[in-house]
């Protein structure tokens, strides 16, 4: 029983984080049909903001808000630096500029901060554990589950009930038509990047909370997770991203429990093989996105 509880908590907390990561990537992809390779660096930005503000006497929550704010800011900055100038030219051009921008941010962190890990301030509660039904689990896992439930619900509310969200969904299927109704293209795109940055910021704090330090390459794993989860779930569907995130977490956690120490090192390779199998079966991913959709 305790094992089952442990397993479920692991899957849910990992899956929540994965789902948020994937969601942040798909929000951009859904609207622009463009992949943001600099997405992982938003998590890095959140981490370094925490590190840089750790010297101040600000309460932790303020630091966290600041970190999320910086991630939002850099999200919007990504649009201006890597997307807007080349958006109309070609898909490959944007892939390359966002990849270059990702390298730029990473190396800036390397140059101006340090290649070595830096400690990130975390509240006491992140390192405490509780016992649930005999299973001992870190409190931060429960925080992650709670945070992801709240955020997923908030994103669902935003996309279903607010004018901005409905306009974003409309823009994802037919950008030109949305503009013809008066929905400003730039507002939609900036909102998408801001939302993406917001999700990256929150997930960044939760993610870094597991290790307690930040390095320039911290964004790689979340980026990869978001990539794989979105490919599994379907590149253009928001629910697909969430499903993909939880499914990937289920696969990873199962492998964590079943593989021997020797094989565990190859976990990513096993996960990837499973992804290939899923894609052989469904090249579009599990959930198909909106029916139509041209790029702008």
């Amino acid at each position, binding site marked *: 029983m305790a094992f089952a509880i442990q397993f479920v908590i692991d899957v849910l907390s990992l899956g929540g984080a994965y789902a948020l990561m994937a969601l942040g990537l798909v929000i951009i992809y859904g609207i622009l049909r463009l992949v943001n390779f600099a997405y992982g660096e938003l998590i890095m930005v959140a981490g370094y903001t925490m590190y840089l503000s750790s010297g101040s006497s600000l309460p932790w929550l303020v630091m966290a808000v600041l970190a999320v704010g910086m991630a939002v800011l850099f999200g919007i900055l990504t649009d201006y630096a890597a997307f807007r100038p080349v958006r109309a030219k070609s898909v490959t051009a944007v892939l390359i500029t966002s990849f270059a921008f990702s390298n730029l941010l990473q190396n800036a962190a390397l140059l101006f901060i340090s290649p070595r890990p830096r400690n990130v301030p975390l509240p006491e509660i992140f390192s405490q554990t509780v016992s649930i039904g005999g299973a001992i689990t870190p409190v931060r896992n429960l925080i992650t589950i709670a945070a992801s439930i709240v955020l997923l619900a908030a994103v669902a509310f935003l996309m279903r009930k607010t004018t901005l969200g*409905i306009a974003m969904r*409309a823009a994802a299927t037919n950008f030109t038509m949305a503009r013809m109704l008066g929905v400003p293209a730039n507002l939609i795109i900036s909102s998408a990047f801001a939302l993406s940055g917001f999700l990256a910021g929150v997930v960044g704090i939760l993610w870094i909370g597991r290790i307690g330090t930040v390095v320039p390459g911290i964004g790689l794993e979340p980026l990869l997770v978001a990539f794989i989860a979105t490919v599994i779930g379907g590149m253009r569907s928001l629910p697909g991203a969430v499903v993909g995130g939880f499914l990937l977490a289920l696969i990873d956690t199962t492998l964590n429990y079943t593989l021997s120490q020797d094989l565990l090192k190859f976990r990513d390779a096993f996960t990837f093989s499973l992804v290939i199998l899923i894609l052989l079966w469904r090249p579009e991913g599990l959930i198909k996105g909106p029916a139509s959709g041209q790029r702008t």
Partner: protein
Amino acid sequence: MLEITGLSINYGAIRAVRGVSFSVGKGELVSLLGANGAGKSSTIKCIAGALKAAEGSILLEGRDITAANPEQVIRAGLATVPETRDVFPDLTVAENLMLGAYIHRRDQVGNRQNLEKLHTLFPRLAERSSQPAGTLSGGEQQMLVIARALMARPSVLLLDEPSLGLAPAIVERIFEMIETLKKSGLTILLVEQNVNQALSVADRAYVMRLGTIVASGTAEEIRSTSDLSAHYLGG
């Protein structure tokens, strides 16, 4: 009301529209006729701001909207219903209509009144309010895009081939509706291939062929022009 002068449009290296001039007066229903590839839809898209004009000018109530982008054109009071019948398929009918009123989103009361008015005009849409627009029939989708455009409370409505691909009975109904809209005082530019239907509701008409206007006049004049079918089929 709407004044187009010397408009030219390029599609890549091809000049799709060459020096077209026409006008639509207040409260008028003007029809733009022509075969496939005559340049009608390019003209419409250009007026709507979705295509850039290479030359010429577009004036709306005396304001120059030639270089305006789509979101500025609708704010200037010109709504467009494109021929591709672009409903947002995953959004419900109500959400589609709500987006139609995007530029008036602060005026909830006005929107509600407008919506009620449209629901009496299109009772079908009221019934299907919470259904995804993608599940509607072709005729219902056409009604939805027209109703959505009207939610913006435009002073000029551009209708691009509202009869395209619809059954005759439904085409009949759509044209009845267009008459109703005209009677309400709305200025309408109607692009059609269905010449007889279009002329039955239009005050005046222009005929386009290969990117230029080859004939113009009142609906009667155009109807009585013997070489109309030659222009039309030859396009």
